[in-house]
């Protein structure tokens, strides 16, 4: 019995341990600001398209994350809404996978496990102001650095900048 326990512990040490829960972004109330002219279009499963401007996005519960990103060595404060909330609001949260397109025609695919297990923030502000395009805005997907490093499912491809469109992946 003791030997079996040792074997199990050894196996866990060799093959890896259990996942650690990621911290949630902090809820925050945002004051209205003047945003750049940008929008995010969501096409729901029934084919209906919803073009959301920045204020429409920020109408959802807002959160704050202070973190670095792969392109920003110094931490910044990002505000925005949770991707899961945004998808839930437009009936896309139970979709198996989503295709996200950026303004520069960059595309990436999100599996459902990504937005269900990681608190990805759809950021609309950085350090309290709009995010310029040269800062990868106006709409930037952000995941807290620690959560990103420990995640088994989140990849750099999921940190979409200049996000412009979300739709079910065909």
């Amino acid at each position, binding site marked *: 019995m003791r*030997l079996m326990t040792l074997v199990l512990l*050894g196996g866990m040490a*060799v*093959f890896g341990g259990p996942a650690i829960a990621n911290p949630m972004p902090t809820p925050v109330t945002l004051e209205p600001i003047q945003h750049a002219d940008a929008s995010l279009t969501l096409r729901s499963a029934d084919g209906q398209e919803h073009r959301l401007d920045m204020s429409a996005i920020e109408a959802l519960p807002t959160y704050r994350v202070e973190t670095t990103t*792969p392109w920003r060595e110094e931490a910044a404060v990002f505000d925005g809404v949770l991707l899961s909330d945004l998808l839930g609001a437009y009936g896309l949260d139970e979709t198996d996978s989503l295709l996200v397109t950026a303004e*520069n025609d960059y595309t990436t695919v999100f599996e459902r496990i990504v937005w269900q297990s990681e608190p990805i923030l759809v950021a609309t502000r950085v350090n309290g102001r709009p995010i310029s*395009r040269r800062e990868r805005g106006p709409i930037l997907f952000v995941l807290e650095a620690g959560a990103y490093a420990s995640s088994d499912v989140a990849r750099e491809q999921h940190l979409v900048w200049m996000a412009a469109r979300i739709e079910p992946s065909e």
Partner: protein
Amino acid sequence: MMRRRSGIWFISREAVDWVLDRLATRIGITSALMALVTLILLAGLSIRSSVDTVVANSSAYDQAHARLPLVTMSDVQRVQNIAYLAHVEGSMSEEREAEFRAALDMLYVRADFFGTAVVGSVSSPSADAALAGLQELLRIGDEATAAGFPDMDAMTFDLTVVGDDVRGNLAIWNDEVRRFHLRLIDGNVMAFMEQLVFTRIALAVAGVIGVLALLLLRAEVLNRQARQHAERRVEFLAYFDGLTELPNRAAFQERLSKCLESGSEFSLMLLDLDDFKGINDTYGHVAGDAILSFVARAIASTAADQDGFAARLGGDEFALILPSEEHFVLANTAENILDAVRAGLMLRGDFLSVSVSIGVAPRSLVDWVEGDPRDAIVRTADFALYFSKEKGRNRATLYDRGLEQRYRRRRDMQDELPVAIREGSLDIYFQPKVSLTDRAVTGFEALVRWHRKGGIVMPNEFIPLAEESGLIIELDLFILRRAAEIIAGWNKENGVALSVSVNLSALHLMSGKIVREVADALDATHLPPDLLTLEITESIELRDWARVQNTLLELRQLGCRISVEDFGAGFSSLAYLRAMNADELKIDQSLVSEIETSEEARFILDAVMDLAQNLAMSVVVEGIETEEQAAAIRQMGGSQAQGYLFGRPVPAEEALAATRPVELGETG
């Protein structure tokens, strides 16, 4: 350890056992478990190593940004296109300027990201050149935008020249990235190939350990089964007979005790095969075993029908305990068994005829018997069985009141006979032997009578008891001593030389002690040895002929005469006659009784007498009862005879008194 058969090597059973024996030791099992744990850990480490390699390659692939050169080309092209359109249109409209700014922003971000990537692991001259070109493009675009596009032609030209240069460098770098990706894929393939090799080794080792474990398990299971089988067999043999599979004597004794303790009514049936020894001698022991099994089945079948208990007590003896004392039930059961056994059996084409004798004792009839009740009921059933044998075998005898009387008498006699011998309450009787020529008495045969409870018990009643109990040795010696004493005294007193014949059981001949006893008797009585004839009764079959002949030789060396008694009845044979090397042949009365009426009987008797003459043996014919018989015997050349015609057995003193003296030298 290894054997080759049909070109294939096999590990021998001994080798497997050797390995398993060592594996089953404490050191062996600990080593095997450690090997297994080590194997699991190594397998885990190997998989972990492969996964790490793949993850690292995947990470490197991510960092190499396979699509980065292409999307960068797209971003460069976007800026160039807008500038070209504005150039064609002749001015930078407000809308076109917004597009141009956005395209520059995208190019800025791309250049920023490109810088991060190029600073990372995928740096190369072409990439560095492309990055420098990107930054130059941004400078051109930003400066033109900031200045309000003062020279559209120059800007478009600069963007075209620098942009083409950037695309060329990006194309070269794209090829480098592709080759880098191929190396990563090769690295992954190698990692999986190594993993495959290790997995094969691990599976082989695990397979060997697994096979050994299964063999060990199988060996253990087989050992356990063999042990259980042996235990069951031992248990079976402790209470069952291996040949017939009937319960054995031990089981029978246990059941009998329980029946007696329970107080319920039951009967004991003892069964004995008739002439089983003859069957064995004739057909062999295989046939004997087959017959025992056959009879056992018949008894077991009856036991099952009657809710009884059948057992083999040993040899050719069986027992059946029946839960009834009803006479008709017992009679029917016995008859059923007799019929079933009489049917016989076929063995290898031969029909074997079989019969049994049965003795039955109801429990209630033996309550009076003293001692161990278990022994009592067995003895009474055995007594009934004895009667079946005595009455001709192949029958059953129920122990009833009549038999009970006989049994009591027999049992009492068994108890009293040793006392009678010890205290001399046995009387010696003499029957004369006469010369057929002149009817002169030449000697006597010493016989014994037992005065018991006011009556006389004849020898045929108590001699068998003496033989059964072993008292026959003591009884014979008593008669020998008394007869020698009487005849010696008479001879001395009357100056005669009468002889005396004493019967000796052939049992004496199996031991040399009789020689000493005879010598002592002769010494004590001063009887001349040639006046003592020892009549060997041939009612039993002798086996050790060498010992018998040696004893006879020693007796003859003492000077005694040896006589074969009752020739013509019992186990007579010419071989017997020759081996005994006797001086005298006593012809049994069964050969005499018919000589007056049967030509055949006369012929046989004549032949026997010729035989004796040729063997230089004197002949005494027993059982002469008529003058005609005496005349016939004399006519055949017989010289001595014995029988009622010449005198019945009477007390020795009375027989001696009736004799008339004969001259010395006429006898012997």
